């Protein structure tokens, strides 16, 4: 009986002191401003701000790298509170926080293409194959749908087509929350 008590309390004391020591040794100094901002954010971790979660967005806000109107779930009330904390003017939700476009790829109408190579120079991912005075075509697997090639085309032969969802390209959706007016 006594042995059992001694052994168990011995284990408990040993592990307790190891954990206590580790808590001091591995203490992480957090930025107090980040925690304050994080407390205002709605903690939906939805990623609509363009950051992986609320904490990274809070970190970016504290470092003054992001605008305060990037958080749709927080509503305008959230923007106001962030503005008060960071001494910034109230900004309403901008165009960038609106619903994203469906994923699409560019398509060249090969009957109209004159082979000017302007779209090839505009493409950031080298997804257009072709040469001067030769017909161009899009390598669909490489196209990111950035639409940078649409504007330079002098004959408007590039159109964006929406990709249909199939089992091969299906992905989890980001959660979307309806905005309630404050």
């Amino acid at each position: 009986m006594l042995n059992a008590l001694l052994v168990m309390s011995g284990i408990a004391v040993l592990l307790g002191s190891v954990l206590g020591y580790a808590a001091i040794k591995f203490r992480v100094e957090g930025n107090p401003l980040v925690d304050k901002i994080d407390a205002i954010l709605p903690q939906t971790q939805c990623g609509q701000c363009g950051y992986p979660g609320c904490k990274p967005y809070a970190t970016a806000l504290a470092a003054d790298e992001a605008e305060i109107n990037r958080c749709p779930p927080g509503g305008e009330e959230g923007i106001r509170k962030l503005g008060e904390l960071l001494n910034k003017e109230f900004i309403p939700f901008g165009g960038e926080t609106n619903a994203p476009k469906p994923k699409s790829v560019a398509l060249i109408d090969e009957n109209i293409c004159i082979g000017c190579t302007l779209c090839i120079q505009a493409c950031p991912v080298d997804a257009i194959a072709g040469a001067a005075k030769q017909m161009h075509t899009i390598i669909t697997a490489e196209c990111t749908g950035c639409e940078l090639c649409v504007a330079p085309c002098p004959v408007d032969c590039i159109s964006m087509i929406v990709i249909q969802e199939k089992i091969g390209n299906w992905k989890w959706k980001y959660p979307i929350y309806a905005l309630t007016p404050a």
Partner: protein
Amino acid sequence: MSEYLMILIGAVLVNNIVLVKILGLCPFMGVSKKLEAAAGMGAATAFVLTLGSGASYAINHWLLVPYNLTYLFTLSAIVVIASIVQFTEMYVKKASPALYQVLGIYLPLITTNCAVLGVPLLIVQNELQYNLIKALWFGFGNALGFTLVMVLFAGIRERLEGADVPGIFKGSAIAMVTAGLMSLSFMGFAGLVK
């Protein structure tokens, strides 16, 4: 050397902790909807499982057996595992904030994973065959098996999400059917190691 290979193959494939021993089903069902989350959970569990098997073997062998206190094994194993989980969480938070963000919520959940307690119990049942290195190795093998199955299952469930599943089978039902089929297929490994 071949003995260690046998332990590894036995733990990963033949006696897989999830699909053959049917332990650790809570994270297997709960955290397998997304591939990244499943891989993170698998990695975190793997770490705790390996250390936990070693530590609880050491406590059993050098503390509980000499004092004739083996009935305290479950209790002390739980204490040790809980502490290792806490320690791991603190260390990861300090050493690699990025990994901490990925694992975040899953780390504390490992304390209640039955596979993490089950493996030390299995080691103690076969005590005569093991020493500290083998206990650690057996724990690592089981951890590997757990991670492998988590990743496979999460991959299948992601595909299922886009598949045309009949209405009554949607959700948990088809996941259970899938788990059963995977378990059956792992039965095929029986007899691989004598």
